[in-house]
């Protein structure tokens, strides 16, 4: 099963007894989605979304000798769009991240490798002016 996010593509395990929902093995959750399970809830960086008891019961399950988290149900809760075709799931942007970034006027941070092989991280460039522009060959 493949999970696509805005900055990653992960080939991860699929729960054998329920392929209708996006169940992600808890140990692969961070790699595939960026989120991780913590005592205070499901967290992405400094954002933590608490899970209520019925959600914990329904969305965390044992199967195939592993612990799984029902990510598609969680995505619906936080308003993150997702679309699938076969065993490929594609996740949209996280509304909370969008609100914390662009809509507050702060440039969304990113880390990407440039053509010289160096990592360009916007937050590393604080203290300097940055002009960023896109183009395309098409």
């Amino acid at each position, binding site marked *: 099963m493949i999970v696509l996010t805005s900055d990653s593509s992960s080939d991860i395990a699929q729960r054998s007894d329920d392929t209708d929902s996006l169940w992600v093995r808890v140990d692969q959750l961070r790699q595939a989605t960026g989120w991780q399970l913590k005592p205070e809830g499901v967290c992405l960086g400094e954002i933590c979304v608490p899970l209520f008891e019925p959600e914990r019961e329904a969305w965390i399950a044992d199967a195939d000798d592993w612990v799984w988290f029902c990510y598609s149900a969680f995505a619906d809760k936080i308003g993150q*769009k997702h679309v699938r075709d076969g065993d490929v799931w594609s996740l949209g942007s996280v509304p909370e991240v969008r609100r914390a970034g662009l809509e507050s006027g702060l440039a969304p941070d990113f880390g*990407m490798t440039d053509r010289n092989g160096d990592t360009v991280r916007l937050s590393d460039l604080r203290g300097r002016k940055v002009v960023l522009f896109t183009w395309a060959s098409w």
Partner: protein
Amino acid sequence: MNLPVWQELYESIGPDRFELISVAEDSQGEAAAGKWFDKAKPTFRCIVDPTHRISSLFGWVNVPSGAWIDEEGRIVRSNEGVFPDETTIKFGLGKVRLGNDAFAHATRDWIERGPESEFVWSAEELAAHLKPVDDDTLLAEPTFKLALHFESTGDSERALRHFDAAQHLAPDNWNYHRQGWTHKGTVYAARQVLKKSAYLRKNTDKNYYDPMELPGENHRRFTEPEWFWTPAVNGLKRLLRREPSAA
């Protein structure tokens, strides 16, 4: 693709005064964008972005788009159509001329004068310029990514299906249209751009690029093509109206 003009601008303003980051939104990655970068020999930072991540993050729906980010990480301006100079794109028997040096002048002013520049936006002005986001446009983003995934795995049928879906969900997103059309080749894509832009010009008040709201910007920013016979047709029209020639 005016990377050489950007290089000149970068050198003339002064590389020690700002960071210039150029991002190629090309699903074919280095294979499509590499030669353009190589030819320009840029000394600024160059990134190839096959999944259009930067456009998604910054809410951009066309290329070129650009932002000024100040020393505190705030976006102080964000525009579409940020050509650094007039750019001619040729295709078959025609060409389009886009942009002028308005954005380059404004950029130089901001680098030199910082917050004193009259072209700096407040957070409120930036918010007012952000593209509206609804359920469909939010769904279009992962749909487009799904298309790019299947394009990269060589599953053309599924790639086209999802490109088509993304284009329907976000009809104003030119990146989704043009990148998707390019799956069928650049000639097909160019014809579709002309067709769609001609339709919009005739039937709507939508612009190919939102105006930058900069003094002196070029208003021929709507991919209005000039065919090789256009000068002769214009000359004939002037003759019929008995107007003096423009020259």
